[in-house]
């Protein structure tokens, strides 16, 4: 039974990380958002495995049913008039990517080392907490991606993935007791509200200025001229 659960957990963790990575790094935005729906479903499954049905419900409701439509709305999938370009064509300089990667690695190390300090037995069997590991990887990657990307929808996605990673870590570290569940629930609601607000603003910005990324003040000024 335990090994079965282990196998399921490992598989789930792998699925989640894969979905998260696609969601973060796929330049086709609609596809990335679809991956996010899959990721949210995986998360709900994970909550079930962690014996937190309440959280699973909330995650399923908020993550898959509420946040994802916000993202699709931001992309303009529901309207025929002003769709965002399907691909993110913004190219960043290499140095930016390198530095962000290094920073993300550093974060990964930081959080990982701390988790290892909290669970000293992880040294002997690193795969005992696969969800925890997935959480760490997701946090670091998503943070790096958030700092790297400039496309607003992708940053919103990165924020959501990172939030999920944090929740996973929280559940893995503290267990799914009342406090943890309360924290995670609040976090989920906040993430949804944030995504909603963000999606509205992205949509409006695109309609007003045709912008899909935050430009510096200077760029805005030049445009004004």
């Amino acid at each position, binding site marked *: 039974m335990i090994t079965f659960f282990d196998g399921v957990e490992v598989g789930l963790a792998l699925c989640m990380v894969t979905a998260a990575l696609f969601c973060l790094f796929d330049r086709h935005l609609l596809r990335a958002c679809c991956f996010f729906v899959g990721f949210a479903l995986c998360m709900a499954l994970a909550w079930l495995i962690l014996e937190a049905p309440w959280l699973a419900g909330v995650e399923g409701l908020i993550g898959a049913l509420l946040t994802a439509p916000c993202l699709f709305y931001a992309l303009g999938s529901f309207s025929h008039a002003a769709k965002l370009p399907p691909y993110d064509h913004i190219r960043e300089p290499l140095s930016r990517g390198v530095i962000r990667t290094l920073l993300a690695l550093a974060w990964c190390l930081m959080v990982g080392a701390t988790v290892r300090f909290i669970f000293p037995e992880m040294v002997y069997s690193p795969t005992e907490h696969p969800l925890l590991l997935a959480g760490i990887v997701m946090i670091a990657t998503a943070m790096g991606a*958030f700092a790297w990307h400039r496309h607003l929808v992708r940053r919103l996605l990165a924020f959501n993935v990172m939030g999920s990673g944090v929740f996973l870590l929280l559940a893995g570290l503290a267990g799914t007791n009342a*406090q943890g569940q309360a924290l995670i629930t609040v976090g989920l609601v906040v993430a949804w509200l944030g995504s909603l607000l963000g999606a509205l603003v992205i949509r409006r*910005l695109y309609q007003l200025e045709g912008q899909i990324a935050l430009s510096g003040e200077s760029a805005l000024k030049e445009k004004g001229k």
Partner: protein
Amino acid sequence: MTWRFGLVESTFTPLLTSHWALAAALCLPLLFGVLAAILPPRRMWPVALACPPILVAGLYLLTDTLHAGLLRWQWEFFGVSVALRLNGLSILLLLLTQWMGAAAALYTPGLLRISEPERFARWLWPLMGVVTSALSLAWLATDLLTLYIALEMMGLAAVAMLLLSGKAAALQAGMRYLLLTLVGSLAYLLGVALIVGYWGRLDLAGLAQVMEPGPVAWMAAALMGAGLALKAALFPLHGWLSPVHASAWTPVSALHAGLVVKASLFVLLQLWSLLLPDAFWAPRLIAWMGMLAIIWGGLIAWRAESLKTLVASSTVAQLGYLMVVFPLLIGPDTSPLARALAWEGFWLQLMGHALAKAAMFMSAGNLILATGETTLKGLAGTSRRLPLSLLVFGVASVTLMGLPPSAGFTAKWLLLHAMVVSQQWLAVAALLVGTLLTAAYIFRFFRYSFMETAPRQRYQPLAPGMDMIALCLALAAFVLGLLAHFPLELLQGGSA
């Protein structure tokens, strides 16, 4: 430090009336906000009628705190315990929030009446209520969950308020602020996760007892520090601040610059004094960043082209003063005298700046509203037609410059004293340079506004009371400096 924040057991149980007063202070702003959204007030008097219950509740809590020294509340919801406390510091900040919220609310009807009606204008009221409630909650909360809730309510409501003006620039700035504040909160939550995972509890008082330095405390402190620094616009993470204010409505800016960023700083200081009571270098790093902030903010404000950028950049510099004090408040070897002085100076500077900055934003908003110009050059020659707004700006800048008899002066005096006692000469130099730079950017604006050769413009008359509210706030900063004895006693009152 934990006793300074009131993280100890209290000997008194709050009275029943205190419960009601607390409930009023926390919920009435929300309630009135929603009411105002349904029936938007067109005049000042409905707002003036709504404010007194909240203010009375605050004053009642003040007398209660004076009586008991420290009040604690604790509730249990579904196995989650929520704890609030009221000591000298938090009641001061609560009162400040309430009065400034009232001032902003009183200012709003006039503003909305003059400026062209916006589609989302009525949403300002509930958001303002949420921000006031969330701020009040943030000052009172003593567990990480409540703090998180308060921070998130505050952050999201603030973003929404800033977005309300609906212009492209506002949307862009608001979007940046939204993303950053959400990520900052996530960093905070990550820190919380580590703490909960290791020590298994969320209440600060309990954590203070079991907390011991170690990798978990360090990592949590680093993550929370970075996240909250981002939310508090500490240099060099302040980039989002001035664009946000450049296009926001005046009362929103006043509340935001005065209080919202300070709340994150408050949480940061509280958590660090808990997690890193003996750290030496981390507070130093913050202090060095603070020195850079003072100089950088001053320079940016000095070269600013628009008045709102000037005021917003000055916030960055003024936050630098608070950052510089970190090593005196947190750290191993500070003499008790220096620590007490720094403690008093820190909060007095925070409160004085909050009042002065709100007044400054309001007067700047008045000037911009009346002339329709946002740049310093466009505002040239305003001294002839808008002397009162300019006077308010001047009175507020006296506090920012730290001239007597303002709260800024008293606070700087205390801080300088503490720094000299603990021989932090670099910080002293930064404080003095900051004062000079403040004078430089203030007088740059005044030079423009007293230009006699500027062409005469048509001026939009202001609604009655808009200048008076700003003047009252600016003068409140003076009163705070002149009667500093009372708040300082309250700040140290937690020591009993």
